[in-house]
């Protein structure tokens, strides 16, 4: 085989069974990558099971900042039998397959580029299959130009709480993997040339769930009650892990109904609460969402979307819950919906969700998805510590009335025992003092008061992030986690007549939306769902209709190649 050269952008896919330690490979590799001076992006896709099946992780390493998923596979490493069949369409003639002869499917053996390594034999010598991930780590770290020392150090750190034997065996596995790849490189089979940059070395590597968790901490979250549900649970465990340090009350509720009602009780008593859930759990929260509207309570709700209806595909991704976030909850009351595109949006918008919820006394929903939650990339910390948690409650006096009519509909929010006032909140229609009422006039005024808040909320909407050309003929719209993939695709298309608008606030819709879109000749929308929910909503709000819809709903995120091809197709269709 001739020497293989990979330049500046490389995608490695490692495929194995649940339980083989793919996650540690992913995390250790991305840390090693940035300490070597590379940018890194990872995405893991997995089945809803604890052992067996087939899971994989994509690790993308580049000289430039990369934040999205690609179909292309430069290096494919199967870690067990049956690890290849799901990648049939993606393993190309250019792909380098590295693995044990018994893990490589017959169909690839003649015509493809394969580097055989005797994984099984080595594992046997080391005393078991459990060290396969460490061996792979040693192997790739060398390819990436890590020093042996730094590979060893990372492994030591990772396993520091385990017994000596386990540490030693893992070290041995790393060493063996490292030496194996030295041989391959020396035999000149391989050459990876990715330009290094110093400035990534001080970066963070952030998963989506960590971004939401960090944003919550920065927003002053001190109470989280939730019920485990993929793919949203990472936020819950992240806050639990940091609960002692930051003074956060963490409680696993008996169900989602309890979770959100606890959250509302917490805000009432002066806490700053959030719940994290997925579509099914959110459905159970609908009545309490409406309660938040009625009692004018702040509330922050994170929904990590996965494909529905019902249980759907628990570990997969979709953007199918925008309309349920928009319309869920009976009655009429204001709300705000955010959908972070990249990890930085995740931090900023979650932080902002707490402040907006408190300021406007209304629920704020943050929509992410499995792709956002379980992907990671390097980034700088952009001064997150400068984000302030703003508190809007006030000291009350003995004349205090919780629902006092004010010009903008926002009454001062008091909390029990903070001042002399009495704080009454009521899910029944109520008067200014919070007493139940059936007076038609009061009812009408209260409805107006609640709806009125929307005017202030609308003044603070966030415009979509714009990339591509300023003088565009074609406008591409996307929202939430599609952002980075769409932006990379549009950069790759490299035309000077196309712009991309990535919405991070979905509701209320940015008031300049119509102006941005109507100057384009052709409008394209990209959504990870089947019915173009956001496109439908934009049409409803602005009357503007999309000419072309790029939709995906098989449970996987869009890839850069897919969006590139679909946009090119749409442009040809003139």
């Amino acid at each position, binding site marked *: 085989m001739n020497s293989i050269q990979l330049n500046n952008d490389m995608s490695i896919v490692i495929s194995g069974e649940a339980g083989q330690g793919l996650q540690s490979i992913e995390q250790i590799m991305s840390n090693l990558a940035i300490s070597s001076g590379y940018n890194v992006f990872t995405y893991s896709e997995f089945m809803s099971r604890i052992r067996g099946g087939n899971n994989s992780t994509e690790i993308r390493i580049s000289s430039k900042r990369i934040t999205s998923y690609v179909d292309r596979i430069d290096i494919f490493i199967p870690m067990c039998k049956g690890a290849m069949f799901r990648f049939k369409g993606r393993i190309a003639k250019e792909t380098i397959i590295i693995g044990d002869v018994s893990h490589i499917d017959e169909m690839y053996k003649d015509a493809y580029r394969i580097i055989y390594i005797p994984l099984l034999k080595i594992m046997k010598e080391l005393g078991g299959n459990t060290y396969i991930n460490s061996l792979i780590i040693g192997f790739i770290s060398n390819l990436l130009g890590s020093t042996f020392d730094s590979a060893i150090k990372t492994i030591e750190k990772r396993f520091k709480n385990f017994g000596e034997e386990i540490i030693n065996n893992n070290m041995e596995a790393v060493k063996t993997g490292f030496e194996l790849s030295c041989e391959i490189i020396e035999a000149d089979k391989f050459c990876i040339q990715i330009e290094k940059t110093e400035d990534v070395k001080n970066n963070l590597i952030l998963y989506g769930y960590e971004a939401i968790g960090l944003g919550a901490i920065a927003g002053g979250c001190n109470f989280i009650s939730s019920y485990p549900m993929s793919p949203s649970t990472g936020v819950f465990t992240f806050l639990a892990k940091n*609960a002692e340090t930051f003074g956060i009350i963490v409680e696993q509720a008996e169900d989602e109904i309890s979770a959100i009602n606890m959250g509302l009780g917490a805000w009432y008593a002066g806490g700053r609460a959030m719940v994290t859930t997925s579509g099914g759990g959110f459905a159970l929260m609908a009545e309490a969402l409406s309660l938040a509207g009625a009692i004018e309570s702040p509330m922050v709700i994170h929904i990590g979307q996965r494909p529905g209806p019902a249980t759907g595909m628990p570990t997969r991704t979709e953007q199918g819950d925008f309309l349920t976030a928009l319309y869920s909850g009976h009655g009429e009351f204001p709300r705000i919906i955010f959908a972070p595109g990249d990890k930085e949006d995740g931090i900023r918008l979650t932080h902002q969700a707490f402040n907006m919820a408190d300021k406007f006394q209304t629920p704020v929903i943050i929509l992410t998805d499995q792709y956002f939650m379980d992907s990671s990339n390097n980034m700088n910390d952009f001064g997150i510590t400068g984000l302030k948690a703003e508190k809007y409650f006030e000291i009350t006096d003995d004349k205090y009335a919780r629902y006092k009519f004010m010009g903008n509909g926002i009454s001062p929010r008091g909390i029990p025992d903070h001042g002399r006032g009495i704080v009454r909140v009521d899910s029944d229609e109520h008067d200014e003092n919070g*007493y139940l009422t059936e007076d038609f006039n009061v009812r009408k005024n209260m409805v107006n008061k609640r709806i009125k808040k929307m005017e202030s909320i609308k003044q603070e909407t966030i415009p979509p992030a714009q990339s591509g050309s300023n003088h565009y003929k074609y406008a591409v719209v996307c929202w939430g986690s599609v952002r980075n993939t769409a932006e990379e695709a549009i950069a790759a298309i490299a035309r000077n007549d196309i712009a991309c608008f990535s919405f991070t606030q979905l509701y209320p819709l940015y008031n300049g939306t119509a102006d941005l879109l109507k100057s384009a000749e052709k409008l394209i929308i990209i959504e990870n769902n089947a019915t173009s929910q956001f496109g439908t909503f934009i049409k409803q709000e602005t009357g503007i209709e999309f000419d072309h819809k790029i939709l995906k709903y098989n449970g996987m995120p869009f890839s850069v190649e897919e969006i590139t091809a679909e946009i090119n197709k749409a442009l040809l269709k003139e």
Partner: protein
Amino acid sequence: MSNVFEPEVDTDIAWCPGCGNFSIHQILLKTLSELKIKQQKLVLVSGIGQAAKTPQYINSNYFNGLHGRALPVATAVKSCNPELTVIAISGDGCVYGEGGNHFIHAIRRNPDITCIVHNNMVYGLTKGQASPTSRKGFISSLQISGVYSEPFNPLAVAISLNASFVARAYSADEKQTIEVLKIAIKHRGFSLVDIFQPCVSFNKLNTYKWYKENTYYLDDSHDPGNKVEAFKKAVENEKYPLGIFYTNTDNLPFEKHLPVYKDSNEPMYKRNVDSDKLAELMKNMKKN
């Protein structure tokens, strides 16, 4: 002597004349006054139903939430500000039916709150359907040939879960009920006070006369520390015992487990994000 908890306005009370809710209301007003709770420090949390309207007629902070959901709210209020006295107050349908799951788990969590259930064995507000505590044979507009399901036994369930404090009272017995409530509110941990309450409009089976004839008070020979004996009393159904069935102080209240109160008792609303610690977390995440 004036009672700060007396309603400040002359409210139009939504209960039927003769309803047991009136007595419970008076009992609660007296209890609160006798306990000398600071008005600002009391929070009443209720669900929805006739009983759940009680806080409307008391001059107090309240959170009148959703049907069935008083206990999660009350738990969170107490945990965000342990200085507050928190009382969840609702009907049997609300607490044991719609909120049944929360009832079980609130007992397990054991927050230091008092849960008062106006147990009229019927759905009052929705006009007389059976409730989880309706007796077998109870006929209503929906249960036309009578209830056939086994009645829910809140006391037995609570005792089986090692609830911190379990009592039953009767709305017509003011003196005894005030005594029980005072002990319950002062008790640290989850206190259940199930109060038999005649519904004169929709429950023609369990009337004032029926309660008089079918209840008796536990005497001094009953030891509330004895779980097995308490359970035996809870499952008696020839005549229903009244009084304190069971107390258990082995379990710490929920709030006491929370690490947030390890070094400080400050309620959550007084606290701020420690940005130094956030900076440190970011630094540590980098070193990963």
